[in-house]
């Protein structure tokens, strides 16, 4: 599948009708989502034929992108039942077979191959962004692909390597996350936030 085609399909997905600010619900735009998954697949082969988990899936954009790029099994996890319902409908529309779980960050019983996520940035619940990374590194056997504000780059790298025992933590590229005016406290019509696409690799001695 070509990048433009993927981006087009993702652009047609339904998003949060009433986003919940305390959960930092922001849709992952098709531009950023398609590039994220394309990189994970074409540069590293971490998507097709793999078991992929989308942590904090929201309306399912990243998980759906993974399924479209040939992931064999996709599990989408989110705490919010309304988002999961929308995600289910989005997957059905595209005739994709995916599983959804309503849960807080959860340590799964065995390792998936790849975790993909656009976690909360931690503006509401401090440290939420790194909580997601911590759990993702326990759950993924191959790699974690995650978005974090560029302004947090050094802190993220240090924490992933030193505290979470990642064997590597690299910024693959810098992307612009376009945040439309979603919440009452948003003053501008649209704002571009510089985000880093990270690849974290868990410690190699995980079974």
């Amino acid at each position: 599948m070509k990048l433009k085609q993927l981006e087009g399909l993702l652009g047609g997905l339904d998003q949060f009708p009433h986003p919940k600010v305390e959960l930092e619900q922001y849709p992952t735009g098709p531009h950023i989502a398609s590039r994220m998954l394309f990189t994970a697949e074409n540069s590293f082969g971490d998507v097709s034929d793999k078991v992929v988990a989308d942590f904090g899936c929201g309306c399912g954009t990243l998980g759906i992108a993974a399924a479209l790029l040939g992931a064999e099994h996709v599990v989408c996890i989110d705490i919010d039942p309304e988002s999961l319902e929308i995600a289910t409908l989005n997957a059905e529309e595209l005739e994709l077979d995916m599983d959804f779980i309503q849960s807080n960050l959860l340590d799964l019983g065995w390792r998936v191959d790849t975790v993909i996520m656009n976690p909360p940035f931690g503006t509401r619940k401090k440290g939420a962004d790194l909580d997601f990374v911590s759990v993702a590194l326990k759950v993924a056997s191959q790699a974690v692909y995650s978005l974090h504000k560029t302004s947090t780059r050094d802190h993220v790298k240090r924490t992933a390597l030193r505290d979470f025992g990642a064997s590597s933590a690299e910024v693959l590229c810098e992307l612009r996350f376009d945040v439309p005016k979603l919440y009452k406290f948003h003053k501008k019509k649209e704002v571009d936030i510089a985000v880093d696409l990270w690849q974290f690799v868990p410690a190699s001695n995980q079974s």
Partner: protein
Amino acid sequence: MRLLTHNMLSSNIKGVVNGFPLRIEAVKVVEKTVEMNGDFLKKMFDKIDWKAFVVASQAMGYTELPEEADSSMLDSNEFLNRFHHALLELHLEEGALVCPETGRRFPVSKGIPNMLLHEDEV
């Protein structure tokens, strides 16, 4: 929710020593055909807990899996088909997943299990 996902889930309730596997209470099971990928199945065979998988498939109404299996059986197309069917084509739409130690029920509705813990369970 398919059985491949069920095989990953366990009860994380505070104090529970071994929350795996969750017992399935199946109220509504739906079958959806999906293309078989032999290489993927062979990879998954090494990862999943077979015993839990067989018990779960029986709870879903499928009784064609052998109680025990070893990797040599992957050479048999018949085995692969059954493995594929139980792992990826049976969907639990309504019912519950039950913690093996506490009996706490995690409801499954519209195919989505709700694993959210109450405040006192964390």
